């Protein structure tokens, strides 16, 4: 393992005046830098061959209204080469602005727009600084601490007299009357939810595309600031609603990291089993809808039939099909039910045959090949620069999977391979996901076989209430139980970023704790968000029908884009 301290050290040597402070917390390195120097520092970090922080994971703001300069902008960087994260922080006053890092990582475009939208942060030199999740003309910045959470704290909302029109947003100068401007979405059968794309068409060929998101914005990050850490688990299910368990897991891991709690081995294994089953279910749903978008109706029904089996298994374990909220900080809500392993094994035995069935309909079907090969191509360098994650970046041939790169929840105990593509087109992403389903099945089988005995929740008294029997007998147990249940967990002040490999890519949480039982900042980094930002890049010059193919292949869920 590469020494994580190297980066802060080198940075301090290179920019002695700009680096204000370096911090280390729970194995994560944070460097506080001067606002004016953010661009050269980022350029250096990205281009230095030894560090090569070529991957921008996240940019977000944090609001401290009592500070002299109230905003903190946090950059999470990742080095593909060193498999290490680095956090950069800089403070910005309300009237100040800072330089954009778009030129270093294209992924920054949308993150900076979001920060502008949510905090009113201003980025100099940004080519397209508009609101992202709310709409043009929206008043206020929701994630500022002085923005009200509850509905009754707002004034009455008046609909604008003139309907909001996005036409003005299309670049005026190259307005060509031979080109047609077409709204695709939010009410469209193939945009997988409420994604809205404004397409500029020359006949059938797309000359420009502008995605609009935010139709499903619920303010999850704001809501969580008013909830205890345990309550906030329920918000996670509703992000990527095709993979509730994985979302639970990512969040719980982040809180556990913040608390420095060790989860028992058995709970870790059960988490892996459920997460991988959920991955199979999510990928089946992807295949179903992706195939339907291309007109292969039968595949949809086959996939839904088999997804049903997986969902049934998960229902047996968690009691819910879509939004389980089953994981707890420090473990699980309950152990596996009796006889579930037989059910899982029966499914796994049948699964290769089922995958073969889908493949018979698609993989070598000439029409499928014609529709997917060479469509929506993105090169590995571009993919990294755009910060793409999950099967999309692996389809481009980048062998990057957090389960291997930064193993969590005992993933290093299992054997599996990371499938990658070669051309970075729709077809390769399709093959990658099919192979991932097979690998997931393999992991589940291993985990079931090796499943250790023992507790399913940590003994740590800060997060786990005492057993019922003790509560009835002993007063201190009763007090402890009352405190854990009513107050929830209170992690020490600090901040962590923790991410896992979700079915759709890297899902991570950046949590800031101020020592109370509610998260001070609950930042979600979602895979669909970064992947959909690169959508225009992939579809320009293609035909209308390819839009549908590409959207399907990057597998977006609007619940986690809009949050």
């Amino acid at each position, binding site marked *: 393992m590469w020494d994580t301290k190297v980066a802060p050290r080198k940075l301090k040597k290179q920019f002695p005046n700009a680096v204000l402070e370096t911090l280390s917390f729970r194995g994560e390195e944070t460097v506080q830098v001067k606002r004016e120097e953010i661009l050269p520092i980022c350029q250096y970090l990205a281009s230095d061959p030894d560090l090569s922080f070529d991957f921008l994971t996240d940019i977000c703001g944090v609001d401290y209204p009592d500070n002299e300069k109230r905003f903190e902008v946090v950059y999470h960087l990742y080095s593909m080469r060193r498999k290490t994260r680095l956090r950069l922080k800089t403070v910005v006053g309300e009237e100040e602005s800072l330089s954009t890092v778009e030129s270093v990582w294209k992924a920054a475009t949308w993150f900076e727009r979001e920060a502008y939208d949510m905090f009113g942060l201003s980025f100099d030199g940004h080519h397209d600084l508009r609101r992202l999740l709310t709409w043009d003309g929206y008043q206020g910045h929701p994630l500022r601490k002085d923005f009200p959470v509850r509905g009754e704290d707002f004034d009455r909302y008046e609909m604008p007299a003139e309907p909001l029109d996005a036409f003005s947003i299309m670049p005026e100068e190259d307005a060509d009357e031979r080109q047609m401007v077409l709204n695709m979405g939010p009410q469209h*059968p193939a945009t997988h939810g409420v994604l809205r794309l404004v397409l500029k068409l020359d006949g*059938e060929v797309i000359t420009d595309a502008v995605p609009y998101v935010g139709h499903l914005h619920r303010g999850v990050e704001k809501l969580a600031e008013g909830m205890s850490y345990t309550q906030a688990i329920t918000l996670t299910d509703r992000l990527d609603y095709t993979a509730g368990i994985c979302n639970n897991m990512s969040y719980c891991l982040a809180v556990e990291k913040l608390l420095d709690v060790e989860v028992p081995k058995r709970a870790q294994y059960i988490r892996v089993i459920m997460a991988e089953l959920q991955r199979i279910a999510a990928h089946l749903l992807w295949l179903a809808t992706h195939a339907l*978008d*291309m007109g292969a109706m*039968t595949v949809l029904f086959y996939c839904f039939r088999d997804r049903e089996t997986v969902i049934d298994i998960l229902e047996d374990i968690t009691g819910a099909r879509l939004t389980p909220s089953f994981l707890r900080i420090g473990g699980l809500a309950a152990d596996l039910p009796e006889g579930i392993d037989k059910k899982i094994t029966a499914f796994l035995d049948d699964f290769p045959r089922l995958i073969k069935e889908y493949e018979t309909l698609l993989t070598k079907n000439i*029409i499928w090949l014609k*529709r997917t090969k060479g469509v929506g191509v993105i090169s590995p360098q571009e993919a990294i620069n755009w910060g793409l994650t999950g099967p999309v970046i692996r389809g481009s041939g980048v062998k990057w999977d957090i389960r291997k790169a930064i193993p969590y929840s005992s993933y290093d105990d299992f054997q599996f391979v990371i499938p990658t593509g070669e051309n970075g087109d729709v077809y390769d992403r399709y093959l990658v996901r099919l192979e991932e389903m097979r690998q997931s099945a393999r992991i589940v089988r291993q985990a079931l076989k090796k499943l250790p005995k023992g507790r399913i929740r940590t003994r740590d008294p800060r997060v786990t209430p005492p057993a019922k029997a003790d509560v009835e007998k002993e007063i201190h147990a009763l007090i402890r139980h009352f405190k854990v249940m009513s107050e929830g967990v209170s992690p020490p002040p600090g901040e962590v970023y923790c991410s896992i490999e979700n079915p759709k890519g890297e899902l991570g949480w950046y949590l800031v704790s101020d020592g109370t039982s509610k998260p001070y900042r609950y930042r979600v980094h979602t895979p669909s968000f970064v992947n959909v930002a690169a959508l225009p890049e992939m579809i320009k010059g293609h035909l209308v029908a390819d839009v549908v193919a590409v959207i399907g292949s990057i597998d977006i869920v609007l619940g986690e884009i809009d949050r």
Partner: protein
Amino acid sequence: MELVYFLIETIVKVGLVFGVLMGCVAYLTLAERKILGRIQVRYGPNRVWPFGLGQPIADGIKAFFKEDVIPAKADKPLFVIAPMISITAAISLFAVIPFGGVIEFFGREVSLVIAKLDIGLLYVFAIASLGEYGVVLGGWSSYNKYGLMGALRAAAQMISYELALALSVMGVLMIAGTLNLVEIVQQQAGWHWNAFYHFQFFPFIFYLICGLAEINRTPFDMPEAEAELACGFNIEYSSMKFALFFMAEYAHLVAVCAIATTLFLGGWDGPFNLPPYLSWIWFVAKTGILVYFFIWQRGTFPRLRYDQIMRFGWKFLLPLTLANIFGTGLYMVLTG
């Protein structure tokens, strides 16, 4: 007196064909949903009467009672006329399709075809081209971008495949030496089916492919392409107008299969001779098999992309159908 008999005969035949056709169209929708259901591990309609047999009727009644919305910006006359063109053309196609031999009825010879036109096939192509106007005008007059794109696609795709379609039957015409569909069937009597007897098998396949494209069915359903164009040319249509487009599509499906049967599969000629008044059974059976094939492939194939369809039509089917004319000509010149 002859005139009266002629009129009665015509009215009875027209009524019969119309009734049977409408029944076929109605139950074809049910059949398609049932067959696709079978393929796709689900049931299909099964609530209205046993096996969902009342479903088409229920659908029809529902269509009548739905609100008929005409968009404010639509070109109203064209918007209303477009579905009428489609359904009228689809029904009119059946005027020349012979569905059985000649039968004796009260001492009068009645042939089981509405009109024995000498230019039967030309009539078919002329009316089929007219039917395209319905789709194109329907999409264009809606004043909807998806509709317009559907209409443009429909126009370009249909004219492209019309060429290949017209050329693919040329071999049959050369062999038959007539455009009269009744005579073409009579020539194929006794197993001399064009598709197998005169090396017209590949043209038969080309014809089926072009037929799929002409009637906009998967994998060629570009004008509708619900994943991309939401619903394409009929996006703004509701109520009975939508139903008319829908019925026209299925009537066209039957027509394409019936013409394929007539031209390539020997029409009402069968493996063993049935009495003339039952000869239509063979015709119906063959048409039914082709219809089943068309439904079946819908459950199997994904949708092609628009440019691929155009390329396939122009660069693949057109040269091959031309080559078939050459080949058939050579074969006939050589064998006399």
